[in-house]
């Protein structure tokens, strides 16, 4: 088989990427708008096209727990979730991050209740920014596919050994059909590689105990190592992005952030997810109207690309940050973190921002244009 161009929903793109990485254990629980991903894999496993164990657990807490069990046994694992499901597995999200289990779990971003909404905002995955997961936000179905594939390679590297959460906007990507270039499955698999040297592998002949009581010293050794692994992950993501480009001809900025527009613009819009794509459209339109606007899409929220933000910000006049989540009682989390990064480097660049697109509110490029114009004026 060779690569081919097809149309796929974002969910199927995630499913196909998982398929090509050949996970051995998949434990799942349904939740809108994620469910097609696991249904697709369920079909593959039951028809024998994918040699894996498919476990239909009774909750998300158990889904991630079962993946963790399999990860402890040293095999490649996969699951997916969204919104309330992510919260319900919350204890395990932290457990697998701090436990350094390289599970790959797409999160289809969806609002948190109550009010109940099945549409997109980023409140769910943002809530887990402390949990020791690599988080990569995507702008279109192609990037969903590419990112899920990359996720295995990044997370499973022995020097990283972290779980990875590719994030895609609910419905906006998950249920939208669009063009995706699929690589030859064998090439895709060889890009990812075997999970042949797992960081931990429970074994009757080599007894040890995982996760027992530790004193402050050991505790700190583990947490400092996790901090360092996150630093190393930056370089790793950049590297994998490059290798991916060399192999498949596609890349996303430097892997951490994607810039669109000119360094010498009057305004930089900072976005995440599909808003980044809409912002690029807005930037082009604004250009035609004579405005110079630059766009930065933060692809990896964890590790947070402090250096890249600072590098780009340095060259610009103004920053405007579009958040699709709120840390209630302060500000949008993207804005908070960007401001912190700039402060740390004492950059004297004015920042402002807005919280948009909560509750599935759509943020079309026209609205972004308006926002940009206002930001330029003020």
């Amino acid at each position, binding site marked *: 088989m060779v690569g081919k161009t097809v149309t796929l929903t974002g969910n199927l793109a995630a499913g196909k990427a998982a398929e090509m990485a050949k996970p*051995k*254990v998949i*434990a799942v629980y349904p939740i809108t708008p994620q469910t097609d991903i696991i249904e697709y894999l369920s079909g593959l496993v039951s028809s024998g096209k994918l*040699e*894996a*164990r498919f*476990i*239909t*657990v*009774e*909750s998300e*807490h*158990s*889904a991630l*727990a*079962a*993946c*963790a*069990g*399999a*990860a*402890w*046994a*040293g*095999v490649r*694992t996969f699951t997916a979730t969204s919104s309330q499901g992510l919260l319900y597995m919350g*204890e*395990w999200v932290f*457990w697998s991050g701090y436990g350094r289990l390289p599970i790959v779990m797409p999160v289809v971003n969806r609002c948190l209740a109550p009010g109940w909404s099945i549409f997109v905002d980023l409140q769910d995955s943002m809530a887990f920014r402390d949990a020791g997961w690599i988080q990569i936000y995507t702008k279109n179905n192609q990037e969903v596919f590419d990112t899920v594939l990359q996720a295995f390679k990044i997370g499973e590297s022995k020097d990283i050994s972290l779980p990875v959460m590719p994030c895609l906007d609910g419905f906006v990507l998950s249920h939208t059909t669009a063009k995706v270039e699929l690589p030859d499955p064998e090439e895709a698999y060889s890009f990812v590689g075997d999970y042949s040297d797992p960081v931990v592998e*429970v*074994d*009757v002949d*080599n*007894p*040890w*105990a*995982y*996760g*027992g*009581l*530790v*004193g402050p010293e*050991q505790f700190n050794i583990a947490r400092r190592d996790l901090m360092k692994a996150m630093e190393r992950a930056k370089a790793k993501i950049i590297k994998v992005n490059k290798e991916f480009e060399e192999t498949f001809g596609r890349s996303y900025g430097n892997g951490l952030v994607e810039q669109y527009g000119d360094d010498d613009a009057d305004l930089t819009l900072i976005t995440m997810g599909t808003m980044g794509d809409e912002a690029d459209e807005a930037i082009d339109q604004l250009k035609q109207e004579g405005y110079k606007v630059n766009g930065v899409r933060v692809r990896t929220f964890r590790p947070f690309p402090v250096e890249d933000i600072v590098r780009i910000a340095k060259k610009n006049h103004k920053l405007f940050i579009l958040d699709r989540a709120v840390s209630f009682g302060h500000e949008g989390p993207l804005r908070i973190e960007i401001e912190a990064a700039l402060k740390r480097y004492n950059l004297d660049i004015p920042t402002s921002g807005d919280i948009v697109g909560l509750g599935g509110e759509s943020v079309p490029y026209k609205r972004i244009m308006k926002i940009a114009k206002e930001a330029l004026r003020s």
Partner: protein
Amino acid sequence: MGTKLKDLMNNPKEVFYKGHFACAGCGSALALRHAIGAIADKVILVVPASCTSVYQGSGKGVSFNVPTINTAFASSDSVASGIKAAMEIKGKDVHVVVWAGDGGTADIGIATLIGACDREEDILHIMYSNNVYSNTGGQRSGDTPIGARTSTTPDGNTTARKMVPFIMMADNAKYVATASVAHLTDLVDKVKKAVSLKGFKFIQIDATCPVAWKVDFSNSIEVARLAVQTGIWPLFEWERDTGKVIISRPSQKYLDKENRKPIKEWTEIQGRFRGVTEKQLKALDADTDRQWNFIKKFL
């Protein structure tokens, strides 16, 4: 299978290195020594938060000589399912055994338990019950007997114990059994039987916690023995394939209530029943009858 005392001496290896962190006289540690010891060469242990996660050791090293995965409290059977799935995929033949307390099984862990049973996972769940959350200082659990004082039921628990074995029978497990630290060869028989079957197996052990039960350390075995003799803790096996209960030898005599010792012999050596009312004792007796009645239906 007729395990004899001398068979206990021929375990593939000892589960424990000496010098573990359990309190003196800990029933759970004793049960683990033999139950897991009997299958120690092929076992992977999964332990949710409990006294066992503590007494295995801490800081420097661990006293368990079998691979042990400590997990979040509500997740043991799911973790075990994931491990077993991976082992199957890898073609490795191992016994994945959950070793969990009553809290981690009957309360916060009941969903993971029933879920795994429902999926017919090939694992063995052993619930050692000390009838409370011992590790956090002895709060009521779903398996606290009527009348027992705990730190959250200072006047005695009022509700019937949960009887997870019955739930597992109703839930169509492959094999269900009860056991006691007072009857170790019987326990080992049941563990061996369980791991010989494919599917979801469940064993509940009455495992004295001298601290929570306010029992003198040295009475740790005696109190468990009395639980059997008073009928408080019926020992039996149930198999899905037959749908039948078999009363285990140590309990056979007590099928007939006539033969049972008065429940007070059991309560009176336990500080947790100090101040128990006659009404509570009656309710405890009635609940014991209910349990036997349930069992009898499957004879």
